[in-house]
């Protein structure tokens, strides 16, 4: 299981970096999403994977008797997922607006000469 996750993380990060380096806006977006997911899986893996041991204490015992699944990485991932969801939603809307204005999917076309503003 760990090995599988390690390969998955490597793939996600690799694909994310590759996509971000492309010039297309959609690929930039995909790259950001891949990297975010990769980071989440990384936290999940490094928190230690424990199978079928929920962090619940028996009524009889006062403390944990056994190795248990660490709940903190799950809380972290949950937070990170919500945040990356919000960021991705914003990014999609922003890129859609830019696409409508610039009429190009190429990031190198985003070089309108500066105009003045208040």
């Amino acid at each position, binding site marked *: 299981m760990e090995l599988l996750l390690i390969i998955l993380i490597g793939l996600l990060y690799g694909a994310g970096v590759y996509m*971000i380096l492309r010039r297309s*806006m959609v690929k*930039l977006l995909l790259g*950001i999403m891949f*990297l*975010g997911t*990769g*980071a989440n899986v*990384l*936290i999940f*893996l*490094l*928190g*230690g994977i424990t199978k079928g041991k929920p962090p619940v204490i028996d009524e009889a015992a006062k403390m944990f008797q056994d190795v248990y699944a*660490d709940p*903190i*990485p799950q809380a*972290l991932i949950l*937070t*990170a997922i919500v*945040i990356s969801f*919000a*960021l991705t939603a*914003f*990014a999609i809307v*922003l*890129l859609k*607006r*830019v696409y409508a*204005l*610039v009429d190009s999917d190429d*990031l190198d076309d*985003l*070089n*309108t000469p*500066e*105009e*003045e*503003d*208040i």
Partner: protein
Amino acid sequence: MIDNHILGPVFIHLFTAILQLVAWRKTATQRVISAIGSFLGLLVAIRLFTKVYTTGILTLNASNWEAPFGIVFVADLLSSTLVLITSLAGLAVSLFSSTGISRQRMLYGYFPIFHFLVMGLNGAFLTGDIFNLYVWFEVIIISSFVLMTLGGRKTQLEGAVKYMALNILASTFFLTGIGILYGITGSLNMADLSQKIKLVNNQFLLGITSTFFLIGFGIKSAVFPLYYWLPSSYHTPPSAVAATFGGLLTKVGIYAMLRVFSLIFIPDDFTRNLLMVLAVLTIITGCMGALIKLNIRRLFSYLIVCHIGFMIGGIGMFTKVALMGTLFYLFHDILVKTNMFLIAGLIRHKRGTMDMKSLGGLYAQYPKTSLLIAIVLFSLVGIPPLSGFWPKIFLFKEAFTLEYYAFVAALVFGSFVTLFVIARMWSEVFWKDVPANVDIEDKFEPLPLARKILLVLPIGILAAATLFIGLNAEEIVQLVDRISDQLLDTSAYVQAVLGNQNL
């Protein structure tokens, strides 16, 4: 010492923002709420600062969870000073915005988002939990994305794409670092981490982890190979927004670096040398950019990059004197850079342009305002006895002692180029006559007197603060002396957070 008032600066801006959401589309009410909220925020920040200054580090355990397990908020001298300066800068920007931001932008929620941004800044300064720091960073960047794009002009959106992509990337690096750090140590509390990190044997893994943090914060604070998003986006939003960004956002990166590298990853030789190389290159590239820019705000954007290098160099040397220089420069830089962009906004109001080629004659027309602006520009350049001068003494002295001659050369070069570009800007914008073929589009004269005061007063407030820390350098030096002691010897911080159990 447990104190519930730590979160005051966070909550005041939260409630201000919520009240403004209630007053949606009522821009006059929003302006008043914003000014009152920022002023209350400043009062609370002053109170927090005096309390920390007199009684020592304050902490607050969220929901009363014991220290290493729950989220802890810590106000030490560094945090509380930065909260104080941020609140002051926030008040100035809030006043300036009430006239400097177009009504159209206010209708789409400029003020609530601005206060969410300041809330995020205060939260980032006050938290003692590294994952919580990440969350505050996200609060900051989401707010800043909205401020950046508000208005929706083409250049603005194009700048926002670059800004967004690199800031999300920085957050991902930061999150990856946190994940690995949690995997190694099993803790997120920064004080607890500083104890547990000493027990880790795998130094190589720690080095890699610290690099993740360095890259994440490096993108945020615009360090050499990672700064390109800054000059290509900071000149696009309105000046009040650019003032918040230029003055405060990059400095959060510096703060996070100071915190993480003093508490968790004490810089080893490799990190120090890396930071010094980055500092030298940051200064040089920032200066090169500043030399060729003729738009005032683009020029200021590159000066931000250049001066970030000074602070990175101070962190790289990581001795008491160097840290004193860095901290002093940090405080000075927040005030001055915020003010510079406000000044750019004022010039734009008076002349309708920010291009040096079509500007001129401001000194003849507005001598008093020009003198006020001159104080700020002189502080930026570092003419004694103004505030930019003192921190450089510490940096020079320490760079000579430690024999980082390349950094000394970069400091000289950076200071000289700053002087040169500011002098050029002064002669072009203020002394030169208005070019013959330029039509002046003056939006300042027709304004009612109250509006004019609202545009000039914030610049005056910040200039007065700059003068204060320049002329009153003795006390500021004592303050940064205490802060750098706290940064180098973190036992007081750890003890305040964890109690005595771990020492």
